[in-house]
């Protein structure tokens, strides 16, 4: 039983990191209808900048630099590529982000190489013991930061002009544009916000109990795809729920791998994708996604 509790806590803390990645992804999709396949590289870039600079400028400044870099790349992708292709198909836009991912991913993988980079975070390997359970402090920090960011983001969407504009654009871009909403600005802010969220997630993916940032972090970041699909690609709350579901599924599948041996070894890696297929078969647009209806 204590095993189950620990696994669930573990899964939720991992899930909160996935939720951050998924949230960034959904913001972009909602505001610009672009499926951003470069999200994993943006995450890795943010984390890499933190890892590479903390030795010289200290952890807080390094985090600021990491967030700024990821946000800048988001901004550049929006200004240089997405804004020029606004009238093209979803597929073309998605493919452009794949191209960006190939280049950025190759360079980051080369720089990290086979090293495991230390993030220089203040939580180190500290743990916190409560009621017989031990929690890594960095994961508690991850949950806290994720909560704050998610609440702040919800407020942003609900109460600011940008939030209203984004929701209007998601509802009907053409109508929103006619009503005087500047789609370019909506899209720009979305990409910047997504970059920030990705970098924060990247930081926590690489802190304790993970030994550090390694070249495969972007593969882990891919699991945000099952998260967004499970939640529904255009639903912000869906992204959070999806992230948690995927984190739990992964951790439980790995934790009970011996009991689930008939499904094969290494179940943790594949569980997110299996959950995704199952959900899609049941609800083709995810748990909270908008169903498109067309009458013929």
């Amino acid at each position, binding site marked *: 039983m204590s095993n189950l509790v620990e696994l669930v806590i573990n899964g939720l803390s991992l899930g909160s990191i996935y939720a951050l990645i998924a949230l960034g992804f959904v913001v972009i999709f909602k505001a610009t209808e672009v499926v951003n396949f470069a999200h994993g590289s943006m995450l890795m870039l943010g984390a890499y900048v933190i890892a590479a600079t903390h030795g010289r400028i200290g952890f807080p400044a390094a985090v600021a630099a990491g967030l700024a870099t990821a946000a800048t790349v988001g901004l550049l992708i929006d200004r240089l590529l997405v804004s020029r292709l606004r009238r093209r198909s979803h597929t073309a836009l998605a493919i452009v982000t794949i191209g960006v991912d190939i280049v950025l991913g190759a360079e980051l993988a080369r720089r990290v190489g086979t090293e495991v980079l230390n993030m220089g975070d203040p939580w180190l390997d500290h743990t916190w013991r409560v009621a017989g359970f031990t929690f890594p402090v960095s994961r508690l920090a991850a949950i806290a930061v994720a909560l704050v960011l998610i609440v702040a983001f919800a407020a942003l969407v609900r109460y600011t002009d940008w939030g209203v504009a984004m929701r209007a654009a998601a509802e009907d871009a053409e109508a929103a544009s006619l009503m005087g909403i500047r789609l370019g600005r909506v899209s720009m802010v979305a990409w910047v916000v997504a970059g920030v969220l990705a970098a924060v997630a990247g930081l926590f993916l690489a802190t304790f*109990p993970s030994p550090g940032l390694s070249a495969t972090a972007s593969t882990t970041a891919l699991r945000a795809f099952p998260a967004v699909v499970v939640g529904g690609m255009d639903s912000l709350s869906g992204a959070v729920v999806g992230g948690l579901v995927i984190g739990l599924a992964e*951790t439980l599948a790995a934790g009970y791998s011996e009991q689930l041996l008939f499904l094969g070894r290494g179940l943790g890696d594949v569980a997110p994708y299996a959950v995704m297929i199952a959900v899609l078969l049941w609800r083709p647009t995810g748990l909270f996604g908008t169903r498109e209806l067309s009458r013929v």
Partner: protein
Amino acid sequence: MRKNALRVVAVAAVVALVATGCSTKATRSGGATGTDGVRTGPGVTADTITLAALTDMSGPFAPIGKQLVQVGELVRAEVNNSGGVCGRKLEFQVSDHGYNVQKAVTLYKSMEPNSLAFLQILGAPINAALAESVTRDKVLTLPATFAQALLANPYVVLPGATYDLELVNGVAYLAEQGRLARGDAIGHIYQEGEYGASALAGSRYAAEKLGLKLVQRQVKATEEDMASYVTSLKAEGVKAVLLTTSPKQTASVAAVAKSVGLEVPLVGNNPTFTQSLLDTPAGPALRANFLWSSTVAPLSADRPGPKAALAAYTKAYPNEKPSYSVGSGYGAAKVFVEIVRKACQNKDLTRDGMAKAFRQLGQVDTGGVFPPLDFSKPGKPSTTASGIAQPDPALPGGLKEVRAPFVSDLAKEYPAGADAK
């Protein structure tokens, strides 16, 4: 349209046939006997002997592959400076497979025809994939890996004890120290494929003989987050965890074990550790709990072999951080050069000549890089001894020997060899 296409092909075929008259492609040269009376095979000319190295310079084992190639070059320079072998200079042909089996198979095909032997083929899955080709081409191969299944291949030179023996000795060491008692549970986290399967044979045997309960967890080579596995091992109340993992996975296990309060010895095979792990957040946990159970001596060991390897390496590459693979690469290259020398004495530098010379080597002393080696028994490991070391960031290689190589009583009874499963 169809007619047209046919006509195009027909015309093309005729022209192609005419063009064949001026083909320039050379055919592969066969064996011959040189003017010095030495029979020569592929890769051997009147003044060079080419050895191949198929290694990992860009994949997960790149740090190891790189250092193995570097020390190989050092040994080569040493040999060539003292006149070479059989009046011929040693040449290396090095390729990077990036730990990609598919790429390795293709590279092997292009390297094999021009090489006398493979000084190095790095990676357990790659050696497994190439086993058939190696046997067919009768090419002597030194795998930079220690899986006992390789011993079934008569063309494989495997200096050192196999992974299973490392763990048998490691568990025996813990029992001797009183850290394990009959009835205790021990965990074993191992990678899929040859590497893990090889080590598992040893942990199973040791657990059965000592009355321990073995809790196994197989992981993929690409997995990095060991949290769930460690948590579940903790739930089983394990008193020690054996590791047959990559260094990154080792770090994750150590970190997670500490984070969930599982403070038990972690015993790893020789590929589970690199010094840079000590700089990560997992460093303190590794220093406290990790034991390196290895047939290769740590570089800081007080024996002539490791000392010579370390001195030569730091002189040639002062800016690099040497690891234990500097020692094993040095020892392995020395063994290989011995085989070439023996084949030279026999005046037979062919593939068959190399295979014969290999079995005639007798006892080989690597100055304590490896325990004393004996290659005369096909299918059996060249030694059953391995030592124990623990992390120490102050020393070169980051490891301090705590017990020199020994053969535990448990290992003496163990049916080591190609078919240990």
